[in-house]
């Protein structure tokens, strides 16, 4: 017998459906049959956890990966990784990727007219400290045109990928910037009806982490699934 302490199911309305027709790519890719609900077992409450040995300390600074500095507004993105009960999650790997200041990704599929920046790759990673804190240095990504609908533009965003403590807590999300005029029109940001949950995807401008004459600070906390109160025998 093993005692399993599972992870809570999401609050209704806070996680998107797979089928979301305004996001056209979902139409041929989302499952059409209902998901089969299964109990969490040892397979789901364990998972890959990459500790400090998997991290290159310099990888949290996306502005110092090349000979010169990238173009664009320098930013500090920082925050905490917490569970739903506001407990900090230490030693959690965070991987990020983003477009450059002109809105172009360093990817062969992205061939739109904006220029590449020889001093910007657009990917980084770091790990949370004992209090669940993380910090990236980057540049503010530009808006990105896509072909989902006529004149479609993605609001500026940074992709975040986290494993959390278990297979059950795996999360990939996107961080947005406050006051972005494109947010109301973006079918990805607007994938859920819950306005509060949506607003938690928008970082907060932060004076405390803003560095004079250097970089603007943005705060973005990431919440992973919390644990069930009582363990089950398994």
């Amino acid at each position, binding site marked *: 017998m*093993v005692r399993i302490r599972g992870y809570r199911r*999401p*609050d209704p309305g806070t*996680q*998107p459906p*797979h089928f*979301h027709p305004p*996001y056209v790519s*979902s*139409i*041929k*890719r*989302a*499952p*059409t*049959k209902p*998901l*089969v*609900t*299964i*109990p*969490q077992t*040892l*397979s789901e409450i*364990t998972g*890959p*956890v990459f500790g400090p040995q*998997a991290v290159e300390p310099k990888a949290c600074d996306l502005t110092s990966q090349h000979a010169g500095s990238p173009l664009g507004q320098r930013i500090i993105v920082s925050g905490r990784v*917490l569970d*739903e009960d*506001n407990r900090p999650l230490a030693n959690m790997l965070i*991987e990020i*990727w983003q477009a450059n200041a002109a809105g172009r*990704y*360093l990817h062969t*599929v992205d061939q739109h007219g904006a220029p590449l920046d020889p001093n910007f*790759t*657009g*990917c*980084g*990673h770091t790990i949370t400290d004992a209090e669940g804190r993380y910090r990236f240095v980057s540049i503010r990504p530009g808006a990105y045109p896509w072909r989902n609908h006529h004149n479609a533009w993605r609001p500026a965003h940074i*992709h975040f*990928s986290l494993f959390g403590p*278990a*297979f059950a807590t795996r*999360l*990939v*999300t*996107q961080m947005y910037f406050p006051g972005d005029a494109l947010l109301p029109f973006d079918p*990805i940001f607007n994938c859920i009806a819950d306005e509060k*949950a*949506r607003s*938690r*995807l928008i970082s907060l401008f932060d004076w405390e982490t803003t560095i004079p004459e250097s970089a603007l600070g943005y705060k973005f906390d*990431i*919440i*992973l*699934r919390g644990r069930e109160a009582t363990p089950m*025998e*398994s």
Partner: protein
Amino acid sequence: MPTPATTSQTVGPFFSIGLNRLRANNLAGPGVSGERLTIEGKVLDGDGQPVPDAMIEIWQANAHGKYAHPEDTQEKPLEQSFYGYGRVPTDDHGRFRFTTIKPGSVPGPAGKPQAPHLVVSIFMRGLMKRLVTRIYFPDEAANDSDFVLSLVEPARRPTLIAKKVQERDAVLQWNVVLQGSEETVFFDC
């Protein structure tokens, strides 16, 4: 007051720039115990077209049925050179392939052992959140009494069981079919 978990968002079309570093299509280096297998397949969309921009992540126990994770408290051996994690993107033709060992059995609900399986996350442009599924193994008597498989209607169970490939030893085929009559079973866990 609890705060609900952050809303999932799609990985989009360009995830490879951020998620390349942990790519691993060989989970079992030299000296790892267990039956060595290559699992290959395709990811297919609702038109039967290959999905060239998907990423598959695998998590599994070692051949003894032990996960390399602090919450696996079973008294079974860990193996230094086996972690159990894989990350494999699809190629331009929607194909993926990885090599691993067949895991041992791990405990399941009500203390009953589960049939050997891998747990799988699938990410791609077009999906606002991951898909979760499992890969089971062919000719495995324990499949008949597996708790998770028993929750799936019998006609759909074969989508979760990798198939032997004729005249190719140690190769199994397992496709991800996103829609239609052969649609893979996806889980909510």
